[in-house]
């Protein structure tokens, strides 16, 4: 995105940062969705970071100076969102739950990116029987219900019972196994495309090693679409974590707050009309996933010229290129649809 005026390099730099660039590029409804998504995601991350300050009680706290909280208390001044069937404060567990979710997202996404990108790169670059085997394996895993696979991995890792670190890692690794094929497919496809480009050929001619070509020439160009998968996978990670928690593979309530576990506990409350134990953790999941999905989908649409909303004809057209003081025409890096 060329800035219209001759700006110092550092001022131009923040405007070309991945997300900032897309916000500037978007208009109208699309910008609204992207910004709403960014705000929701920011609230989620801030809640996770400042949970100890925001939450009125600890996630595993059952009593304070005045004695036990009591089970299934309806919302009141002491417990703004009421208490659960186990006697925990709902508000505190919703806020602390952001930490668990964020932790699982970060671990799961990092692990699956590293493994998926590496496998995709090697598989696409070298080809051969290894490539064939990996493609068939990843296709098989990809087509299988993610939750069932996550259940199997959770059994393996934690035997179905979980401490804090064990439970979080179990959830994160189960999710990783499910996500590796997605990164693998994308990176492999890009690698196959890029490795036949002229610049890779040139690098090979001047004697660059395979490793150097893979990292410097192929990987750098193959990671274009990763931010999109990343946001969408982060939201899937939360849903998988909650699903595992709902089936009883969650983290024990004394180890950490986890929304899926709380929803499982509230299942019987609903029948007797107790709504506050299920609504709030559920809404927390929905808002977090909504935020991440809005960001991911907006980025996706903006990257696809067919779906990008365009400024109406007659509105100020974006300059096709701007003249720098030196007289050279600088083309915009915006893809013209």
């Amino acid at each position, binding site marked *: 995105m060329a800035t219209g005026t001759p700006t110092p390099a550092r001022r131009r730099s923040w405007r070309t940062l991945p997300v900032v660039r897309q916000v500037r590029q978007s208009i109208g409804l699309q910008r609204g969705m992207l910004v709403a998504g960014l705000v929701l995601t920011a609230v989620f991350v801030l809640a996770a970071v400042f949970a100890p300050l925001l939450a009125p009680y600890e996630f595993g706290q059952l009593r304070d100076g005045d004695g036990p909280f009591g089970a299934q208390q309806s919302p009141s001044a002491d417990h703004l969102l009421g208490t659960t069937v186990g006697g925990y404060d709902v508000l505190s567990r919703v806020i602390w739950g952001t930490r668990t979710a964020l932790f699982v997202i970060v671990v799961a996404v990092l692990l699956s990116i590293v493994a998926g990108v590496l496998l995709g790169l090697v598989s696409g670059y070298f080809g051969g029987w290894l490539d064939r085997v990996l493609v068939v394996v990843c296709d098989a895993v990809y087509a299988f219900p993610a939750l069932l696979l996550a259940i199997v991995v959770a059994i393996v890792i934690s035997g179905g019972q979980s401490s804090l670190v064990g439970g979080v890692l179990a959830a994160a690794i189960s999710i990783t196994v499910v996500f590796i094929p997605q990164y693998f497919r994308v990176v492999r496809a890009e690698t196959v495309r890029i490795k*036949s480009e002229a610049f890779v050929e040139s690098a090979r001619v001047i004697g660059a090693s395979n490793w150097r070509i893979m990292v410097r020439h192929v990987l750098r160009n193959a990671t274009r679409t990763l931010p999109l998968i990343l946001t969408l996978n982060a939201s899937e990670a939360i849903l998988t974590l909650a699903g595992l928690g709902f089936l009883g593979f969650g983290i024990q309530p004394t180890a950490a707050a986890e929304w899926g576990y709380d929803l499982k506990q509230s299942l019987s409350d609903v029948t007797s009309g107790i709504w506050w134990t299920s609504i709030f953790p559920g809404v927390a999941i929905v808002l977090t996933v909504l935020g991440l999905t809005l960001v991911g989908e907006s980025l996706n649409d903006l990257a696809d010229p067919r779906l990008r909303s365009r400024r109406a004809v007659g509105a100020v057209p974006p300059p096709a290129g701007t003249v720098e003081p030196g007289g050279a025409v600088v083309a915009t890096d915006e893809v013209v649809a």
Partner: protein
Amino acid sequence: MTTTTTELTESSPADGAPAPGARPRKRSGGGGLGSYLLIRFLLIFPTIFILVTTVFFLMRSTGDPITAALGGRLPADQLAERIREAGYDRPLIAQYLSYLGDVLRGDFGTTLSDRRPVTQVLTTFGAATFELAVYALIVAFVVGIPLGMAAAYFRDKAPDAVLRVFAILCYATPVFFAGLLLKLVFAVWLDWLPVAGRASTGAEIQLQTLDHPTNIYLVDALQTGDGEIISDVLKHAVLPAVALGLLTAGIFLRLVRTNVIGTLGAGYVEAARSRGVGESRLLRKHAYRPALIPIITVIGLQIAVLLGGAVLTETTFEWKGLGFQLAQYLTARDFVAVQGIVAMLAVIVAVTNFIVDVIAALIDPRVRY
């Protein structure tokens, strides 16, 4: 290019264009469809083999299932006896080979907790899950496709914004939370629909006494010909079907919207318009129809989503299907049953994906390459 490119051309939609150096694809004149179907059919076997193998080694890496289920509850010598009886003391590779042999004969093991063959669990509870999945797909079609068309038609206007947020909400909401909400509003507060189960007790007893129960309750209820039972069964199905169906409806909505936007911008729609084709005919015949073909392909992937979602939906609504049963076995730590059900679902997913691909190939010649 110094390396020979060996492209695997089957089955990976994410693949980019093949490298220019790659061997040109064989163009088999009239046999295109036949050879495509054959390759696609043969691919079922490695898929099943990989999943069954993966699940087997994953589950065994934690130790034997008998210790997992009964460890601590039985004295050590009895435990060892049970382990030896079941053959879990043999080398892993021997266990694996005999397991593969069993699976090839269609034997997926016997559950530890209630001593039932896993295949019998499937035949008893599979029908309920199938029934739920069909209802959910109906909800997804009825909600997702028309709304997707509307969103594309009103692209970037207010209705589009509302529909897109609705679509995202559909898959941002975990199915079990959607289920809880529906239960709370329609079953508890409004008291319009039953809270849980597949039928009320009275109706269920009548359905069990049928001569040839299919265990698909709607079919069984129609057999009785009793209007009250039919409406009872349908009432029980509404909330679970909506909870599970909305998930897929959101995906359909988004897909239809994207595709209709694509076809509306296509050259042949422009050409038809310039020929004077009326607007409604234009939408129906030229924009909507080709946009629906990708739905068929997506259904293949949705089957996996539906099965995963069914486990959660059935637990929420005590819908006694395969997913509900799986959750029960999980709680009982009966990992033989879990492994058996998961392996069997792998077979089902692979086979249904094949069927969906065949249908897609028959409808859309471009799929066959």
